[in-house]
Structures are given as structure tokens and as C-alpha cells.
């Protein structure tokens, strides 16, 4: 008997014998569901490609992204040796895009971990306790929400100084309010459920209820929101890079590449367009994945 059927049987066992098996079984079913959605799968492929490219950058990139060769400036795409052409310093654009994916991933990875966590915490606490806790936290959220994200990020970077870490911090600090809103909305719905009443009746404290019972119900909305937000985060990082306030040259950050390619937009369009295409494709990938995840993770469609 081959091994493949047995792990499938293990995953779909109607009577799992451990919590781990139960959880993996549910994840498997969720995977089957998302597999039916072709657009979501396309998005997933793009995201996986991004991860792959970033991981294998040293292997994939044909040239050193930082090495300048002024004799080979502004060569068009299709030039032998430079598939996507070279920029105004003679650096290979393809290699810069490939290495730039690491920076992109670094930025969105950090933001994806910090901002939703902060927003989730603030939103669930505000929603669960209500009263003045809710009012204070939500007004704080409103203050952050009232500023246009890019302007606020700019201001923070201006104060903290340019550089990739500060750019990430700035973006994360502006990205959490929508998660707080989403988490609070879910918490308000969940708060009145019978299962919350039941656990309260068993003597559970607020921390256990929020972390163990409320947060798991908010996670789907937050996760979907994160994937859809990724596009926005990339663009803000690009915007900061474009304005020279985020990542500093000569790092191959995509936004920075667009900024420096601006001067040549009409004659040597590829210098700005190629990184722009990369941003477009990655943003599209995250959007499609986010839409597909919504179908899978929406608690209303699951478990009926």
C-alpha cells in the first residue's frame, strides 16, 4: 500500500485522535476548498513565486545588483545578458528586481506581523469591555485613521530618519487602525454568543475569553484584510522609496528603482516600468489570494 492514500485517510478521519490531527484535517478541507477557486490559486502561485525568488535570489540573479558598469548604461530589454535591460548606472534590472524581492518581503513580512497583532489586540479589548475602554481606544484609532497613511508615514520617517527599519516602523504604525476596527466589529458580534456566555459562566477571566475565544473568531477577517492590505503596504513602501525617505540607494528596492527611472521614462521606459510591473504583479497576487481566502475562512460559510 502506498503512503499517499494513508495520509489522506488520516486527514479525513471523521474521528481524529488528537488535537493536532483535528486541526490538520480542517486545514486540509480548507485547502480543498481554496483549490477550487482558480483565481485564488493564481494569486497563491504568485505569492509562492515571490517567496521562491526571494529565497533563491543569489542563485537566480544573473548579475550583481549593485555592480555598476557605466559602459553598459540604459540598454534596452532583450540585450543579451540583460533580459530586462540596464539602468542609468549599468546595473542589470532583472537582478535588481530579483534581489529587491527580498526587501519587499522583508517589509511586508514585518508589517504583516506587527500591525495586525496590534490592531487585533486593541480591537478585541475595546469590543469586549465596551464602556470607556472602548471609547478611549476607538478615539485613539480614529486619530490614527484620520491621517492619510503616506503623510503619516512620511512624518514618522522624517522624525526617525530614513532607512528601511524606520520605513517599516512607520508603515506598521499607520497600518494597524483598520485591523482594530475590523477586530472590534467582530468582537461586538461574538460577544453576545451563547458560547461566550457559557465560558463566562464557567468562571473564565477576560484574558482567557479574549485570547482563547474572541481572537480565533476575528482571525479570518484579519487574515483576509492582511492579504488585501499587502498591496497597499508595497505601494506605500514604494512611495516612501520614491520620495527618497525609505530605503536608501543603492539598495534595489522597487519603489526606489521607479523613482530613479523617472528621469528616463519616455526614452528608456524600462528602467521605471519593469519594477512597476513587479509591484503590480505582486499586489495582484495578494489581492487574488485575499479574495479566495475570504471564501474559505469566512466562518459563515464554514461549518454548515
Amino acid at each position, binding site marked *: 500500500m502506498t503512503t499517499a492514500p494513508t495520509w489522506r485517510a488520516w486527514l*479525513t478521519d471523521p474521528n481524529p485522535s488528537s488535537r493536532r490531527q483535528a486541526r490538520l484535517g480542517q486545514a486540509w*478541507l480548507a485547502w*480543498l*476548498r481554496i*483549490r*477550487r477557486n482558480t483565481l485564488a490559486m493564481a494569486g497563491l502561485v504568485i505569492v509562492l513565486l515571490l517567496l521562491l525568488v526571494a529565497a533563491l535570489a543569489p542563485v537566480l540573479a544573473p548579475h550583481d545588483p549593485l555592480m555598476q558598469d557605466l559602459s553598459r548604461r540604459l540598454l534596452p530589454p532583450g540585450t543579451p545578458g540583460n533580459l530586462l535591460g540596464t539602468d542609468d548606472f549599468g546595473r542589470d534590472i532583472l537582478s535588481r528586481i530579483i534581489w529587491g524581492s527580498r526587501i519587499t518581503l522583508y517589509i511586508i513580512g514585518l508589517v504583516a506581523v506587527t500591525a495586525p497583532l496590534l490592531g487585533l489586540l486593541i480591537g478585541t479589548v475595546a469590543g469586549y469591555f465596551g464602556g470607556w475602554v472602548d471609547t478611549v481606544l476607538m478615539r485613539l484609532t480614529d486619530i490614527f485613521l484620520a491621517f492619510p497613511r503616506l503623510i503619516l508615514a512620511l512624518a514618522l520617517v522624517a522624525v526617525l530618519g530614513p532607512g528601511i527599519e524606520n520605513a517599516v516602523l512607520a508603515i506598521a504604525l499607520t497600518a494597524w487602525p483598520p485591523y482594530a476596527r475590523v477586530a472590534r466589529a467582530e468582537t461586538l458580534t461574538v460577544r453576545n454568543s451563547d458560547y461566550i456566555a457559557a465560558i463566562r459562566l464557567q468562571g473564565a477571566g477576560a484574558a482567557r475569553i479574549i485570547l482563547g475565544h474572541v481572537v480565533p473568531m476575528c482571525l479570518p477577517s484579519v487574515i483576509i484584510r492582511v492579504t488585501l492590505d499587502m498591496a497597499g503596504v508595497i505601494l506605500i513602501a514604494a512611495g516612501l522609496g520614491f520620495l527618497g525617505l525609505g530605503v536608501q540607494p543603492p539598495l534595489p528596492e522597487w519603489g526606489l528603482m521607479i523613482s530613479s527611472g523617472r528621469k528616463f521614462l519616455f526614452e528608456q521606459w524600462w528602467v521605471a516600468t519593469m519594477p512597476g510591473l513587479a509591484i503590480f504583479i505582486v499586489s495582484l497576487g495578494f489581492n487574488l489570494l485575499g479574495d479566495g481566502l475570504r471564501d474559505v475562512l469566512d466562518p459563515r460559510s464554514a461549518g454548515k
Partner: protein
Amino acid sequence: MTALLDVQNLRVTFDTETGPVHAVRGVSFSLGRERLGIVGESGSGKTMTGRSVLRLIRPPGRIEADRMLFDGQDLMAAGEREMRALRGKRIGMVMQDPKYSLNPVMNVGEQLTEGLRRRDRIGRAEARDKAIAALEAVQIRSPERVMTAFPHELSGGMGQRVMIAMMLIPEPDLLIADEPTSALDVTVQAEVLSILDRLVRDRGMGLIFISHDLRLVSRFCDRVLVMFKGKIVEEVAAKNLLQAKHPYTQGLLNCLPRIGGPREPLPSLDRSGDWAKETA
């Protein structure tokens, strides 16, 4: 008596990611201008049967039948346009909870007249008159006031009466009522049922009454179909219900508590028979 509705070998299947789910497995029945009750528990397929007649099941569900004729018209072959012409106008449906089946952002008057004005192109004043007449027919005492109310302002019984009025305005030939009184209080149930009873009788309509409540259906309908796991296990005249032969029906009758009944444990349904085991 010519059959108003003739259904042969109806099958409803849902294609889920874990394989097909057979909600209705070969149901056949015919209905004249009489009252047919379809009784079953959850998962019996009774609601799906009702919805199939109106072709209200969306993918991943699919409906198949050897024959499904409404007054001679082939429902399986009808296109969406033809079904739309039938729905509401000739076949009406009353659902369980008016909270969910009435549009919460339109007031009652708008909902009652919407069908008339859009589909039948009746003018505003005439439509309004018909709506008020319909509300009076369901014994709503101040119909003008109810016309301007929103669904959330109505009590359960009132909402359900509005729902019935809405379904009866176009004067359909067949009414499918899916648990119409299950969400209502006991005393209100009796009222709403008597209204439904009178209207169906006066207009000579056919009625399919879907419910989980065997006692209710037997009191209200002429014939009863008992469904279990997508199949009909028994078909019996309502007045002969106590002499039902199938073990499931008998089990269902006996397991209900009765006021003044004995204090011993209620006889529970014996699911060991062959009828309980087949799933395909």
C-alpha cells in the same frame, strides 16, 4: 382530479469538495387542489423538495427529475424566464421566519406592491388597493398603518401574515409553505394556520405544507408524506395517521411527549431497521 403538480423521481444533489451529497433521492408525488403535508426531520430533504418545484436551488446543487409538471407545463425544461413568470404568480412560497424572508429595508407597502407594479404593470393606486385588501384578508386590523411599517417593527405573527398576504396577492394556484408557523408562538400559530386554512380553501389552491411537526400537519392537511434522508417512507391520508405502518412514522408519533402522559422515558426512535441504513 387533474394533477396540479406531478413529480416523478426527483433528485437533488450537491457537489461539495468532499463528494456528492444526495439531499433528495428519488421522490415522486402528485398534487391536485388539495393540501399535502411533507413531514420530516432535519436532513430529510423536505425543504429541498419544496425548493425544487420552484427551481430555487443554486449550484453546487442540481435538480434532476424524470418528470416535473405544473399544470401541464414542464418545469424541468422551462428556462429561467419562464420560471420567473411562474414564481409568485402561479406558485407562491411562504417561508419560516419573516425576519429573514421580508426585506428589512423596504416597508411593507413597497414589498407588497413591488411584484404587482413591476411584473404585472399595475398602477400605483390599484396596486395599493390590492395590497390593503390582501392585508385585510389575513385579518390585519389596521392595514394602512401596517403598510408604512418596516418588518422589524412587526411581531412574528404579524410578519408571517404579511408574508402570506404578499404571496397571495398574485393569486397563485399552488402555495408552498415551508415551516410557516415554526418561528411563531403557540397561540399565534393557531391563528395564522386558521387564516391560511381559510384562504387556501376559499381560493381552491393547492398547498404543500412542509413541517417537522407531525401532529400539526396531520391536523391541517389532507394527505401526509413522511420523508427520511431524502426518500419518502410513507404516504398516508391525514386521518389515518395513527394507523401508519412504517416504523419511522410510528416512532415519530410515539416519541413526542404528551401533556398528562406517563413519566417514563419517552420511546426513542429505533434506528436499527434497514430503512435507516441506506444512504445512496
